[in-house]
């Protein structure tokens, strides 16, 4: 068992994605060690969501390869799906269903049934702190409650790797903290490898063990937050790191497509 990949939950090699004219991802090579919370940063349009969609088998790469928990995303998508959880940027919990119904649906699609399903669902309810509202339709929940439910839904099957795309976008500060707590809890109690995309520097400071900055589809830099800060001198903040390596300020607006995605992500939580 001296497989050198054993310590890496995610490996990408020259991962590339073209959409018609746009090169969304340009030869991305990354390694994410098991058990870490890894932040994928970059301004709007940098290719963060594209990366996640390829790694979760939703999108085929144009070239290059990616391995999750030892399985190639293109060659063994089902093996990969068994081992990952994914919380999309948009709303993935069904507002017309209750928390229990949402959890039951996911659990059954992950192949759980019988007594085990019941145990996992009730565990997920207390994990997300939704026991008391478990039988209310999700559309009555606050943004933070929905996010916690979505994380619980995506981890019912104890995935080795969890992907979250902009998990706290549009959440108020208190709700954000409750989401962060859940993610730290997963890292601690199950040693889940977690990859999040974000452009929130506070989130990176609080959560991430390592990070990579993407700029227009290319990897600009990778390292721990501490390393990257010290490369810019003693006084540097993560904001400085971001500006330095992505060559952009955080609020770069992005095109219509991204603005629409972000707005609807925020809107849905209101």
């Amino acid at each position, binding site marked *: 068992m001296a497989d050198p990949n054993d310590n890496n939950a995610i490996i990408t090699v020259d991962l590339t994605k073209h959409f018609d004219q746009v090169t969304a991802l340009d030869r991305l090579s990354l390694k994410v060690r098991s058990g870490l919370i890894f932040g994928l940063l970059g301004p709007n349009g940098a290719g963060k969501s594209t990366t996640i969609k390829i790694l979760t088998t939703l999108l085929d790469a144009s070239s290059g390869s990616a391995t999750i928990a030892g399985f190639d995303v293109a060659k063994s998508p089902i093996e990969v799906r068994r081992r990952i959880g994914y919380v999309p940027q948009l*709303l993935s919990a069904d507002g017309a269903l209750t928390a229990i119904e949402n959890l039951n*649906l996911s659990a*059954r699609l992950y*192949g759980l049934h019988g007594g085990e399903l019941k145990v996992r669902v009730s565990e997920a309810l207390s994990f997300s702190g939704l026991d008391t509202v478990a039988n209310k339709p999700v559309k009555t929940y606050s943004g933070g409650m929905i996010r916690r439910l979505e994380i619980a839904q995506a981890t019912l099957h104890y995935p080795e790797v969890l992907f979250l795309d902009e998990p706290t976008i549009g959440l108020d500060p208190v709700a954000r903290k409750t989401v962060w707590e859940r993610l730290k809890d997963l890292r601690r109690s199950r040693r889940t490898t977690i990859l999040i995309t974000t452009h929130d520097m506070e989130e990176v400071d609080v959560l991430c063990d390592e990070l990579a900055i993407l700029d227009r589809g290319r990897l600009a830099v990778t390292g721990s937050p501490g390393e990257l800060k010290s490369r810019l001198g003693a006084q540097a903040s993560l904001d400085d790191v971001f500006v330095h390596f992505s060559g952009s300020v955080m609020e770069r607006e992005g095109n219509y497509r991204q603005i629409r995605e972000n707005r609807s992500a925020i809107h849905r939580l209101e």
Partner: protein
Amino acid sequence: MLRFARESLAIASAEMHKLVRDPTEMFSRAIQPVLWLAIFGQVFSRVRGIPTGNLNYLDYMAPGILAQSILFSAIFYGIAVIWERDLGIVHKLLVTPAHRSALIGGKALAAGLRGLVQAIVVYGVAVILKVNIRWEFLPILTAAAGVFIGSGVFSTFSLLIASIVKTRERFMGIGQVLTMPLFFASNAIYPLELMPDWLKSIAIFNPLTYLVDVLRGSMIVGGVSTFPVITSFGVMGLVFLILLALASKIYPGLAR
């Protein structure tokens, strides 16, 4: 196989929960056949413009309107899928290891059950309008089976189209363009024999024709099917399997 069944049931039961919680959509769609039967049917049975053998026109038309209500409400499934895509629900389903065909099959199963509820409504309206319903066990079972599988066919068709066009605007446009011809190029409100040859040859390939034909032979007293029931179910079953296979290939593209 067992896993496929479990996954389909998971999807179908979620759909059923939604339906029970908010049945308004379904009932508002049931209003349409009421109008067709009550107005169009009443007028045409006075005119006697369409030769329907020894059936009065309202009786003749009732199975066609039941089939129509199944066809028209299938549009709902395409819209719902586009809605689920815009939110991110489709993405959530597609990252699970569940069979892609079970994700679609589950929706078809839900559509089948929904179709049965609609059938009860249409039967009810037909009774009020004094349509001569055939109250016998086997014919009712046959009609129910037809409604069930027909709902599966048209909802899967709708889901397939939605997976191809991906946006609400395009889907609404195409939905209208496809459903009206499907309706008129069928035996729903006039017999095949009355059609010009070109229309008849289209109607023969239209699954709605077979649904109507099954219902006409089973729903009303004195109604006769043109095709053997086995043929009609065979055609609908085959069409369903083809649509299921196509949709299983194309639906995952919604998450891109």
